[in-house]
């Protein structure tokens, strides 16, 4: 392979070299199973993903398994590879991906789907599951977007639902046994049907009503379960966690040590898929975390450490943990960052901890502009919370504050949008209330809006999404409402959000659209500069599928949803009741205040929800 010559011509060649410190290199002749862990985005994005670090470590700890990394080559590299006839390869051994036993993709966002198809194409692996021969790798997927696996159903041999630490090893064990048996390819897929959390799309049939909705979704194999239950790890202190992270040569998006403090979230914001699908809440103890932190500091030499969870300040032993971490980091010139802080328990003490070594900007997420709408989405944060937190930040010497909001939420009115502008003005007033000599001279308030995308397994999974025009009008409206020059406003591409909305709640018929889009050259659709709305419209036309069927209509509770065969633990009854409460503007207390009976305890046994 003439890689050397190509690497001299492409941007950022260290994306492709793979001999980073702590990367694992095994001899392919000395292992039984080769797993290509594929992240359908460019190196610096994929390498920032904690799940990949965990599973890479998990698989490579097994003596007879070799896990290697694969990323989507950037556009310049892909062009060179296609020109030179170089197939998609793994970083560690530069082996063609097609040689591996498993080709596993992690599904982090819908807009990476086109990259998956494109990577399979670049690997020379038949795109459709049904076209793969006996010696082809098994293509599998996991990650949050696997909870609605249907748009990828035609491409993927099997999905692993939920947390991967146990299920992956069970699948590997099944592979060892299957290999010994000498059975045909299909038999492996039959074997893994017995593993909880495995979904094999080809063992299910779908039929449709005249109006396009699903009529029936039924298993066509005796061992295929009617409902597939996600997997969770019950004991967070004894689950495997890497004591080494690969230290990249180039700067990656999250270039630091990450400590996962807990899974799940007590909050139950109604728009948030993560808050529902990762339930129940399970914490790691500070002792466990400090032990990882120490090992990771020693093994990486990183200059920054961050805590990872859905809502850092909800960690019950945050003080104990941050005190312990500061002891480890301070004299080693390691800065500590605490992302995902909630406004309602943001304190001066917490803020000072974050800035002890280095001071960065602060980001708050009120999500909606009025109390009414914040109640609808169950954000549970008040204007006072925000203003108090902003005041603490300005008093503490911060000048840059970012405010995140969503646009296009259910029941939203112009008043709610104008409320975003009013709120940012009030934050500005907090700055001017701080004495001149005490405040940071570089004041910058940034208001950012994303467009709401209804997601499966949330109380809003039935609601209609705003269309492109509606969203763009709202963006212009808000832009005009923000009068102060000290407040800058930026917004997400509405077309991208709408396309994300189509795939988020799509069904199997979208596989054909993805196939057409790949032929038209779709790739890196999560990247603004490569996302091409017209290309996608053409792909939908070619596949004879109406995109708006999936997002521009309200669904009835009685409709069979494409993801109804997946069980995340949270019951449909709970989601319905939450949606009804949203309509009435009623809030639901967080899981620590009161158990709201979401169903996850019933599904996974009590004693969780820590």
């Amino acid at each position, binding site marked *: 392979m003439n890689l050397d010559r190509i*690497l001299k011509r492409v941007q950022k*060649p260290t994306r492709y*070299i793979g*001999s980073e410190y702590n990367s694992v290199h095994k001899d392919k002749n000395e292992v039984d199973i080769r797993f290509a862990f594929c992240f359908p985005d460019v190196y610096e994005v994929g390498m920032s993903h904690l799940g990949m670090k965990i599973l890479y470590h998990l698989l490579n700890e097994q003596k007879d398994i070799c896990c290697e990394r694969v990323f989507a080559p950037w556009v310049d590299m892909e062009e060179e590879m296609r020109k030179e006839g170089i197939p998609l390869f793994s970083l560690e051994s530069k082996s063609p991906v097609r040689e591996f036993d498993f080709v596993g993709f992690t599904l982090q966002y819908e807009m990476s789907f086109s990259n998956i198809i494109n990577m399979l194409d670049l690997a020379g692996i038949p795109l459709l599951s049904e076209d793969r021969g006996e010696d082809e790798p098994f293509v599998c997927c996991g990650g949050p977007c696997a909870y609605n696996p249907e748009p990828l159903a035609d491409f993927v041999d099997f999905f692993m639902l939920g947390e991967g630490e146990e299920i992956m090893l069970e699948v590997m064990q099944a592979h060892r046994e299957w290999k010994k048996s000498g059975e045909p390819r299909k038999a492996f897929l039959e074997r893994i049907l017995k593993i909880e959390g495995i979904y094999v799309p080809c063992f299910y049939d779908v039929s449709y009503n005249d109006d396009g909705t699903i009529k029936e979704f039924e298993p066509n194999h005796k061992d295929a379960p009617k409902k597939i239950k996600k997997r969770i790890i019950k004991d967070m202190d004894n689950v495997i966690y890497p004591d080494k992270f690969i*230290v990249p*040569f180039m700067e990656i998006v999250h270039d630091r040590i990450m400590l996962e403090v807990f899974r799940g979230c007590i909050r139950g914001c109604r728009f948030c898929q993560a808050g529902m699908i990762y339930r129940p809440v399970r914490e790691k103890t500070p002792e466990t975390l400090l032990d990882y932190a120490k090992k990771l500091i020693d093994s990486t*030499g990183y200059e920054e450490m961050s805590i990872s969870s859905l809502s850092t300040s909800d960690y019950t032993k945050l003080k104990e943990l941050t005190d312990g971490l500061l002891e480890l980091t301070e004299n080693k010139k390691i800065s500590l960052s605490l992302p995902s802080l909630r406004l309602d328990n943001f304190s001066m003490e917490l803020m000072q901890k974050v800035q002890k070594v280095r001071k960065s900007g602060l980001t708050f997420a009120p999500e909606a502009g009025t109390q009414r709408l914040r109640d609808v989405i169950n954000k549970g944060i008040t204007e006072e919370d925000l203003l108090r937190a902003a005041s603490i930040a300005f008093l503490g010497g911060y000048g840059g504050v970012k405010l995140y909001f969503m646009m296009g939420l259910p029941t939203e009115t112009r008043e709610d949008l104008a409320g975003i502008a009013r709120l940012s003005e009030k934050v500005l007033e907090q700055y001017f209330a701080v004495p001149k000599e005490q405040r940071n001279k570089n004041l910058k308030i940034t208001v950012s809006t994303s467009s709401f995308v209804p997601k499966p397994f949330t109380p809003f999974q039935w609601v209609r999404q705003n269309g492109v025009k509606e969203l763009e009008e709202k963006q212009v409206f808000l832009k005009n409402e923000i009068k102060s020059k000290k407040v800058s406003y930026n917004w997400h591409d509405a077309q991208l959000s709408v396309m994300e909305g189509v795939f988020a709640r799509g069904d199997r018929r979208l596989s054909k659209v993805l196939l057409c889009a790949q032929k038209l050259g779709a790739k890196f659709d999560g990247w603004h500069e490569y996302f091409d709305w017209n290309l996608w419209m053409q792909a939908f036309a070619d596949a004879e599928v109406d995109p708006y069927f999936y997002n521009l209509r309200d669904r009835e509770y009685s409709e069979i949803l494409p993801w109804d065969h997946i069980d995340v633990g949270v019951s449909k009854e709970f989601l319905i009741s939450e949606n009804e409460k949203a309509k009435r503007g009623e809030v639901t207390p967080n899981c620590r205040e009161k158990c709201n009976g979401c169903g996850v305890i019933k599904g996974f046994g009590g004693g969780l929800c820590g």
Partner: protein
Amino acid sequence: MVKYRLEFSKTGETKFVSHLDLVRLFSRVFKRAELPLAYSEGFNPHPKMSIGIPLSVGVTSEAELLDVEFYNEVEAEDIKVRLNEKMPMGILISKVKKLEQGDAKLSTVSKAQYNVKLFGAEITEEKVSDFMKKAAIEIEKKTKRSEKVVDIKPDIFALSYISEDELFMELATGSNANLKPDVVLEAMQKYIDGFGVEDYALHRIKMTDATDRELI
């Protein structure tokens, strides 16, 4: 504070690691090796370390130089062993020297020697010496604003034939004058009839000051 000078090689895939990334890599290696790296004072403390003459991306080397400051003294051999244990594949410390007052600064580097391997090209001894006999070797140098013609001859201290696909070069390097081996190859293709190169591998062998003295 104690200062040290390190010599290291950068080979294999690490030749694609840029100068800036290499600086970050070293600051992490010092941390992993638990060496008492000194930091600057101020708001954003950074390690007191400098890598001599940046090596172009794509070029391998066995003679890179790095100066570093520690809070306290560590045995030179110990530094070498500890760093090499924590180094990614492809980078290896070959020498460590404690710097004394009066030792030459890295900024006195003014010459570098290269081995140049040619792919898809053939050269003869005669052609090389004819090339070097030219009174001037002019190339077009593009800057952001304009293009100008410069004579690179004075910056070529040596260019010799090793075999039909291998050359040796000694070129001006540093802040006063800096000539890269690929520019010389470009000039050769312009001046020597029938000489074209498909690809090449560049390797830095040595860096010296103006009087041919090594700095470590």
